[in-house]
């Protein structure tokens, strides 16, 4: 069920005179969390900005049909995840990259980021995350950075809690191993 604040915002959104004001409040409330979720997936700011804006445009169009049987932010995370995956997939096709090439591409993007320092643990962590398979990467980011409970993550990714726990377990192990041994 939608929390009280979101419920009020959604009610205002459905009333034409307050629509834009309510939507602006929704964006303001969730923009940073969603931005970082997207940014960790697509790496570059410009790409994250594009995906974020596209997803908020899609949400604007679909919000009237939001059934409120899940949390608003769960729904937003799901759209943000799908939009990011679509973006990565399109880029892969555009550049005719294989999955391995794409992972290398993301690693290179991390290395090209402003302030990158290969000796710093937080940057090593970012490189390690890019070496994970796509699904594990998303699960790790949602759990490690967003501290999302498995129950909610299960709604976002439409995967069982057990599978998500296993994914996170494997991902964390691989990352630790990567940092310690490379």
């Amino acid at each position: 069920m939608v929390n009280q604040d979101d419920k009020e915002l959604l009610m205002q959104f459905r009333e034409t005179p307050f629509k834009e004001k309510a939507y602006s409040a929704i964006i303001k409330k969730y923009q940073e969390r969603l931005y970082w979720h997207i940014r960790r997936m697509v790496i570059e700011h410009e790409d994250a900005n594009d995906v974020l804006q596209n997803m908020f445009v899609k949400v604007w169009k679909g919000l009237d049909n939001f059934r409120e049987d899940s949390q608003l932010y769960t729904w937003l995370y799901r759209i943000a995840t799908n939009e990011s995956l679509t973006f990565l997939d399109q880029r892969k096709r555009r550049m005719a990259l294989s999955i391995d090439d794409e992972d290398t591409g993301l690693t290179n993007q991390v290395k090209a980021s402003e302030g990158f320092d290969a000796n710093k643990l937080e940057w090593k962590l970012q490189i390690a995350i890019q070496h994970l398979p796509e699904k594990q990467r998303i699960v790790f980011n949602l759990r490690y950075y967003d501290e999302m409970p498995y129950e909610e993550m299960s709604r976002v990714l439409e995967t069982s809690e057990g599978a998500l726990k296993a994914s996170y377990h494997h991902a964390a192990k691989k990352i630790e191993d990567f940092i310690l041994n490379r």
Partner: protein
Amino acid sequence: MENEHLILNSSELKKHNPYKVPVDYFDGLAMHVLLKIASQKSVYQSPENYFGTLPNQILQKIKESNVANELDVIAPLLNKISKQSPYTVPESYFNNAQTQIPTKVVKLSAQKIIKYIAAAVVIGFIAIGIFWLNKPKVAKIDYAAINKIDVVKSMETISDDDLLNGTYTDNDFTTISTTDITDLPLANLNLEDEIKLISDTDIAAYLNNNELDIEEKENTNS
């Protein structure tokens, strides 16, 4: 009425209260009232909206400890790394992000217009294609074959009656097999010079003959 008055004034009627009170109620009443006053006049103050945000704060702590505890078991090293994102964001990006989104919506509208125009162009091409496919076919004139017709020779084989009645066929005109029409002497004739060579009396006689023929033909038809 008189009887009732008598009963109320009777010394025999005791002033007994029919309602009951809990045991020792009046002994404990003062203490209860003071406790209530004390509970309402607390000397301590809680921060504004403290209790409104408390459940979320507690849940947040539980969540954090869960993730941290989980990592302690799986990969303890990750608990020692700062969760601060090393990526940078343009200055005041989040203040401007909201204002950028309507721009994007406008951009999308423009894209939509382009899509409509593109659709209209495609429909236009399809319509033109259908028109050309269904256009009534005009017989193609074979000018090369016409050039090869030996007009003079063919005219000799057709009678005046056939010419006047239009009862000749295309087959009556034979094509030149070896010579081109430009090779014929007629093709090189200068008409003005040739006409000067014909006398006026010859022309008048020709016209008269033909006119007569036509009139005769018209008479026979009627």
